[in-house]
């Protein structure tokens, strides 16, 4: 039975939309002072902060909107927001 009602979209299709272009401030992570608590990755509304192979956290600038939540929650103050140069 095929129902032709409604709309369907492929899972995670929103990734086509690179929201990084919205950014005014860019988060800069300092690996020297980071204690790898992972709070930045936990609270990112975009889910775009990831742990790399060395265990350090880094933002995916294709999607980061530059909200600054990660800077606020970082207990070691090792994230700072810098004005985006375009």
């Amino acid at each position: 039975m095929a129902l032709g009602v409604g709309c369907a979209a492929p899972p995670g299709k929103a990734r086509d939309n690179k929201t990084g272009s919205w950014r005014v401030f860019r988060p800069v992570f300092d690996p020297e002072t980071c204690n790898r608590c992972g709070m930045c990755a936990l609270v990112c509304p975009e889910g775009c902060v990831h742990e790399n192979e060395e265990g350090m956290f880094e933002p995916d600038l294709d999607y980061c909107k530059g909200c600054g939540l990660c800077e606020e929650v970082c207990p070691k103050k090792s994230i700072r927001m810098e004005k985006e140069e375009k």
Partner: protein
Amino acid sequence: MAEEKQDVELFSAGHRACGGCGPALAARLLLKATGKNVIVVASTGCMEVFSTPYPETAWEVPWIHSLFENAAAVASGIEASLKKQGRSEKIVCICGDGATFDIGVLCISGAFERGHDITYICYDNEAYMNTGIQRSGATPYGASTTTSPTGTCAPGGNPLPKKDMPAILAAHGAPYVATASIAYPNDFVKKVERAINTPGPCYIQVHTPCCTGWGFESRDTIAISKLAINTGLWVNYEIVNGVVEKAKKVRRVPVEEYLEKQKRFRHLFRPARQDAEIAKIQAIADANAEKFGIDIKLRKPAE
């Protein structure tokens, strides 16, 4: 299993929420808690609009949206069908406070009365943010919205108190009702895990500040939700089989600290400070503290 959940991002980046969006964070945490074996039912609302502008979707799990008012009814139907087929997917509704407190009460009440095994999550951003910040049943006393504006006739903004939705659904005999906040992400994740593993209809109301609607900087989303808890205007608690348990205790701070950071309460401070209105909001916080016993009391010397 827990580690596997942490790695997989089921709520994908690229959704169109504002930077620093509280509900977007709640959606991410929700899917971290549920994992893949879930069917999400959404009502109309900000989350539905920013996460699924056709033909895009941020959800990587089965997701369905029908109308504003009937998320609980759709979820009931899915649950009944899955039960008949002997399938194990969990059903989770994610709806805004407008859909929960005002428009969807009929269907929610029906679903909870029939006892469907669903988890209903209300992300509470305290107004209809998607359509332009109209007042809902969840808007707190004193907040200025576009339909409860402050002015000479209503110097205090919204004249009505916030509806006590958790108590209404606990009164339906729900086995598990909880409030949570994105200020404590792990607490929210734990509560969702408990709710989806509890048979019967469960309800979680999660406090999700909206930087656009409330008027604060996007980086302050977590700080504002923490202040709501620290002032006593939001209380994290669980109601298990009708009994209130585990209310989060705090050392309370005056409500001004929460109010003065938000544009929706600006009229209380400018052009003239309205002490009478602030005292009324403080009284709400005091009543919450009294009701749930959230004040940390210093140990008294033995008498």
